[in-house]
């Protein structure tokens, strides 16, 4: 322990409410105004030229930056402990922006094989069309990550909590593998949010979120956020987009000019400019509203989840529950280190009786909403075998780690006793009709 005392810094809960915003200097509005404007007036021609040439700070056009979005970007960067962030049209757009800022045709990614389906589609099927290949590995196997690295590898990637098995990504270990290979580690921290885990402090270099989920928290927007930790030494590796002259910006070398902000500046000056997957200001406002209560909501999400997990784990019709809070989960001990405030509110459990039992259970629930999303204030449920993965047979489902009776829950903020009653009633219905 250090014998020197650091000054106290602003706490997480305060940053969630205030970071990135001061009362509006003109109107004195306390809430973040929604700057619903496509573009912004230049004071004079020289200032305009300065904005375009990164000599001046300010806004030009809302695809590139917007004052409402900037508050959100700064706030998530503060909460995640980064140097800056970019708000994107969706979590998928944030993932694409990260990859496209680093990788070009011929490059390679090593990724966890336990990923959100949309991310898997991007890496497995779409990016190869553009010459970017991905090798998928067991997220619990650091040696597999290391073994999959090739000379053309530019990025290591994983989700803080894998999908659907909730594998906890050992960020310190995997980031060490990445840095040994002189590549950055990108972590999707959607399921955790910075309230439960700040991957940059554990060694990750870049973090992305689907803001659609817990960050906004009410299931009303689609949005994403990409955060640059500013920690990665791009000069140590082979990263032409950062280390070489960019003719698309007057031969600027981002790594030389912008120091720890090199990646996020390149992402804004090229990726958002050219691919254009920006966030709408109204969406940014709604995500900000969610962030203001993130600490309170996440604590309640976790507390409710632990109650529901406890109930299900003890129920005779439940074959298994996969949540790192349970001692039998393979990452139970690791989760205490990586996610000390709790392992999130999304998890799967398997009901006895296979696919018919799963279907019956879901159709019997009254408070849980049957839909394809997670991270809402309301509790959600889905049966992967009959929805998202319905084309798979039993063998294929098993290979993907998805049992025919697997139910995925996203636990909301309701009274936990009501959630447990809802599940108890649905399980009773399974017992009567399916008789597993």
């Amino acid at each position, binding site marked *: 322990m*250090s*014998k*020197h*005392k*650091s*000054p106290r*810094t*602003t706490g997480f809960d305060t*940053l969630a409410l*205030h*970071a*990135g*915003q*001061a009362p509006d200097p003109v109107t004195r509005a306390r809430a973040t105004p929604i700057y619903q404007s496509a573009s912004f007036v230049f004071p004079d021609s020289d200032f305009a*030229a*300065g904005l375009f*040439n*990164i*000599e*001046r*700070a*300010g*806004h030009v056009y809302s695809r590139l*930056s*917007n*004052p409402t*979005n*900037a*508050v959100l*970007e*700064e*706030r998530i*960067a*503060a909460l995640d*402990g*980064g*140097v*800056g*962030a*970019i*708000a994107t049209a969706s979590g998928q757009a944030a993932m694409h922006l990260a990859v496209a800022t680093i990788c070009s045709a011929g490059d390679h990614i090593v990724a966890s094989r336990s990923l959100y389906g949309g991310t898997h589609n991007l890496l497995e099927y779409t990016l190869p069309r553009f010459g970017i290949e991905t090798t998928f590995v067991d997220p619990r196997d650091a040696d597999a990550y290391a073994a999959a690295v090739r000379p053309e590898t530019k990025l290591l990637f994983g989700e803080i909590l894998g999908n659907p098995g909730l594998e906890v990504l050992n960020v310190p270990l995997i980031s060490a593998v990445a840095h040994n290979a002189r590549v950055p580690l990108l972590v999707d921290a959607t399921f955790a949010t910075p309230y439960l885990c700040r991957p940059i402090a554990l060694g990750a270099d870049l973090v992305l979120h689907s803001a659609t989920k817990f960050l906004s928290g009410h299931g009303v927007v689609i949005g994403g956020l990409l955060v640059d*930790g*500013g*920690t990665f030494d791009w*000069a140590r590796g082979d990263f032409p987009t950062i280390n070489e002259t960019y003719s698309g910006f*007057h*031969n*600027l*070398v981002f790594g*030389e*000019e*912008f*120091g*720890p*902000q090199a990646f*996020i500046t390149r992402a*804004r000056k090229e990726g958002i400019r050219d691919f254009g997957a920006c966030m709408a200001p109204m969406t940014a406002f709604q995500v900000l509203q969610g962030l203001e209560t993130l600490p309170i909501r996440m604590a309640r999400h976790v507390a409710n989840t632990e109650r529901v997990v406890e109930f299900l784990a003890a129920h005779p019709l439940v074959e298994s529950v996969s949540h790192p809070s349970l001692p039998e989960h393979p990452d139970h001990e690791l989760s205490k280190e990586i996610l000390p405030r709790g392992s999130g509110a999304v998890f799967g459990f398997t009901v006895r009786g296979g696919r018919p039992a799963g279907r019956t259970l879901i159709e019997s629930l009254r408070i849980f909403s049957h839909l394809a999303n997670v991270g809402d204030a309301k509790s959600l449920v889905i049966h992967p075998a009959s929805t998202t993965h319905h084309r798979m047979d039993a063998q294929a489902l098993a290979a993907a780690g998805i049992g025919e009776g697997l139910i995925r829950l996203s636990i909301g903020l309701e009274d936990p006793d009501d959630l447990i009653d809802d599940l108890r009633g649905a399980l009773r219905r399974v017992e009567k009709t399916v008789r597993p």
Partner: protein
Amino acid sequence: MKFQVDGRTVFASTGTGRHRADKPAAVFIHGAGMDHSVWVMPARYFARTGLNVLAADLPGHGRSAGPAMDSVRELADWVVRAMDAAGLETAAVAGHSMGALIAFAVASLHPGRCRALALLGVSAPMPVTGALLNAAEENDHAAIDMANTWSHSPAARLGANENPGMWMMGTGQRLLETAGPGVFHADLSACNGFDPDEFDGPVSCPSLLILGDADQMTPARAGLRVQQRLDRARTVQLPGCGHSMLSEQPNAVLDALISIFV
């Protein structure tokens, strides 16, 4: 660009400008534990508008080879040798914090090399608290935490950066973390050991002090005393601005620099 000073590699940003012998020059000197990137916006402005820009990483900082120097006089002489190596006879010289002391020393020791002077976040002397010096000497992260917190105004600690999407506290911390072992302590020692009476050469070039009235590291009242050492000085005070003025109020800082350099 990279070039050699004293047989060691030096990196300097030119603001993506190309050196031309017929153009005037501007030299930018960063503060303790920082590197050239703090000057990115002014460097790019003055490069575009016709100056030869040299924003070098001081020895041991950023991409320049070490070792770091712990004396403002040594650093001022080094800056002049760097100007020689870059082919700059005279320049408008701007410095921030420790860099301001170095710029002041360049103007005092080598008056023929400095056509204009801009001192940002300056006080003379520039005493450093023992807690910070001791923590830096032991390369303890507490030194970074102290410097980063005290370098930002209370308002800036909550952000609202003019530069969209950038978190100032995070960037400041990362820059200080990038400095190698001993570098920050050498810088702080240089600041702490600076004796203005050692630099009694007249500074007669046009000079500008840019001071933040919420600067906790070099309070504006201490900066104003520096003005007495300059023959032709004026002051710009930035309301609500802390010590990290290049990130807290980049547009106001650039406006002030334009008023003295152009």
